[in-house]
């Protein structure tokens, strides 16, 4: 079933993993996270796997329940319920290689390569309504084509980062990333409307007003033919695709022995899409009143050809292979954590010093991700429990676009040098995924050497 979730399933809000148990994978969410080991090696392809699918305002059982309700009725209800800001998002990330080593007692270097599929598609309500019901029931309504908004990206990310303890209170970190995108399709910043009104010269008039549509793609079309071998997307993701650069920065700051602030900005960067680019543009305005017969047999008019030529001139469509740049979905994380409970000491093995920690902690996290339509926010309250030095658990309660009662839970355990973590979000949804608007998981297997 986990596999099902991963197949069926952006860069997701990993609120359970964030700041959790000094796991090596937390360095990808905050390069300024504290670490206390000498080095780590991720098990290839297993060191960090995450999947997340979310459908805002939609659940599978809205449509596919065996409830005896006519399917077309359910479709009609759903179409009425969905709004242009509703969307589908999908993120799958697989860590191919991940490792790190301590340079000295203050500096930890980590590096690796991961692949990420990130997609978001907003619901173009007006376009769907027009296609599904036509313009007849909607005279005078302006169908808004700016609602066409989607972005899909498949990237390989090569990264190297450093976290450095500045003093007892402050740890800073940064990570440099090189992106290699083998597939991008997106359409953004579109405009224009389609309207049908009662006309003056004829019964109706169709209007296309200030249409400006851009459909961009890189990696999908080569020599006017669609990509034939999808495996190329994966094999070329190691620096073989369109390249970009990005930066992660982060910090940990102890306001007091018990109170800790962490924050990070992840994927502040862009990709210059230059390979296998195929873009389509449509631009212009047009008013269609029908064909005006002139009844002039001496000078017969080829109305249809004139109409086509006029339309092509006023609403030109074009293809180009111009390179374009697009920002990565930048994430901003911040958290405040208050520790309490029993005080314990763990040995910092790399320099034989000790670190004090508490068995319990509560806190608040905020997560923001830049999205094509608008940023998305999530607020998480969490409770962290340390059972032993090697077994930690974290429970989260998140309020976001998809749910007001999203409970997540994660555990991190270490036996010998093997560190294993697993966490699921939308916990209550896992007993009936069909009734969930989102589902996500993260897991990883790493070797840690103290």
């Amino acid at each position, binding site marked *: 079933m986990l596999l*099902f979730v991963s197949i069926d399933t952006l860069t997701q809000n990993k609120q359970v993993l964030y700041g959790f148990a000094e796991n090596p994978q937390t360095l990808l969410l905050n390069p300024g996270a504290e670490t206390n080991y000498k080095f780590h090696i991720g098990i290839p392809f297993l060191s960090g796997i995450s999947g997340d699918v979310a459908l805002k305002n939609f659940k599978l059982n809205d449509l596919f329940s065996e409830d005896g309700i006519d399917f077309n009725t359910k479709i009609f209800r759903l179409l009425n319920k969905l709004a242009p800001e509703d969307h589908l998002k999908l993120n799958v990330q697989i860590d191919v290689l991940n490792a790190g080593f301590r340079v000295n007692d203050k500096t930890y270097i980590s590096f690796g390569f991961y692949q990420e599929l990130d997609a978001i598609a907003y619901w173009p309500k007006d376009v769907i309504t027009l296609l599904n019901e036509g313009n*007849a029931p909607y005279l005078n309504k302006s169908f808004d084509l700016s609602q066409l908004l989607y972005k899909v990206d498949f990237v390989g990310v090569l990264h190297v980062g450093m976290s450095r303890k500045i003093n007892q209170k402050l740890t800073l970190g940064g990570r440099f990333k090189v992106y290699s995108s083998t597939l991008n399709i997106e359409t953004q910043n579109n405009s224009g409307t389609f309207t049908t009104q009662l006309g003056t010269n004829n019964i109706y008039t169709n209007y296309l007003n200030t249409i400006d549509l851009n459909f961009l793609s890189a990696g999908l079309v080569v020599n006017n033919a669609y990509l034939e071998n999808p495996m190329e997307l994966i094999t070329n993701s190691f620096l073989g695709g369109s390249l970009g650069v990005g930066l992660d920065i982060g910090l940990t700051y102890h306001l007091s022995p018990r109170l800790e602030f962490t924050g990070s900005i992840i994927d502040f960067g862009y990709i210059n899409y230059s390979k296998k680019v195929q873009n389509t543009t449509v631009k212009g305005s047009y008013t269609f009143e029908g064909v005006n017969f002139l009844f002039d047999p001496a000078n017969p008019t080829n109305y249809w050809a004139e109409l086509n030529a006029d339309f092509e001139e006023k609403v030109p469509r074009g293809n180009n292979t111009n390179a374009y740049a697009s920002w990565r979905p930048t994430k901003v994380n911040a958290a405040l954590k208050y520790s309490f409970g029993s005080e314990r000491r763990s040995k910092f093995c790399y320099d034989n010093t000790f670190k004090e920690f508490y068995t319990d902690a509560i806190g608040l996290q905020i997560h923001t991700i830049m999205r094509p339509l608008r940023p998305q926010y999530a607020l998480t309250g969490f409770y962290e429990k340390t059972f032993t030095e090697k077994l930690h658990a974290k429970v989260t309660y998140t309020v976001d676009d998809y749910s007001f009662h999203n409970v997540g839970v994660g555990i991190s*355990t270490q036996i010998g040098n093997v560190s*294993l973590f697993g966490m699921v979000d939308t916990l209550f949804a896992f007993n009936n995924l069909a009734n969930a608007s989102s589902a996500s998981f993260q897991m990883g297997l790493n070797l840690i050497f103290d």
Partner: protein
Amino acid sequence: MKHFKIGIFLMFLFSVACSEKLDFKQVEEFEHRPVIKTPLVYFTLYSNDFIDTVSGAENVNPLSDVSDFRILENAYLRDNLEKIIIDIEVKNEITRDFTVEIVFLDDNGTVIYTLSTLNVPPQNEAFTYQESIEVRLNPIILNTRKTRTSVTISGAATPLIENDPRAFELKSAGTYFIAAE
């Protein structure tokens, strides 16, 4: 080791996700029925259009014009069009009867469908006509590639006045009913 086992157990629990039984086959029942309205032919004729400029005599022959009409070349429409409703509105300010014949032609110019002839009384400024064409009963309508409109003025009851500003206006629209699975 005990904690490791607890960990494995919890991991297992997390991975056992469930779902109520869903029936994805319902998709096969999906049918969408868009209804599309577009303007068709329109024109305005005056008395002068029916008067021979040389002899000054009334022109009793029909005035006729033709246009290509190629939207039914679209495979989606050909496969899914159920019905077409043609709406016609006429404003006749002229003091004479008119007959209007609208026909649909195939690519060879052969008439494949004729709308009922419109007999528009004199000075009827709100004449309307609607004809519904069921594609199932008239599948040949899908071969329409041209449309021709002919307008004939009735015999002289009251003579036409040259440069008379009163007009004969015709407007038309098509409503296309689509049923696609």
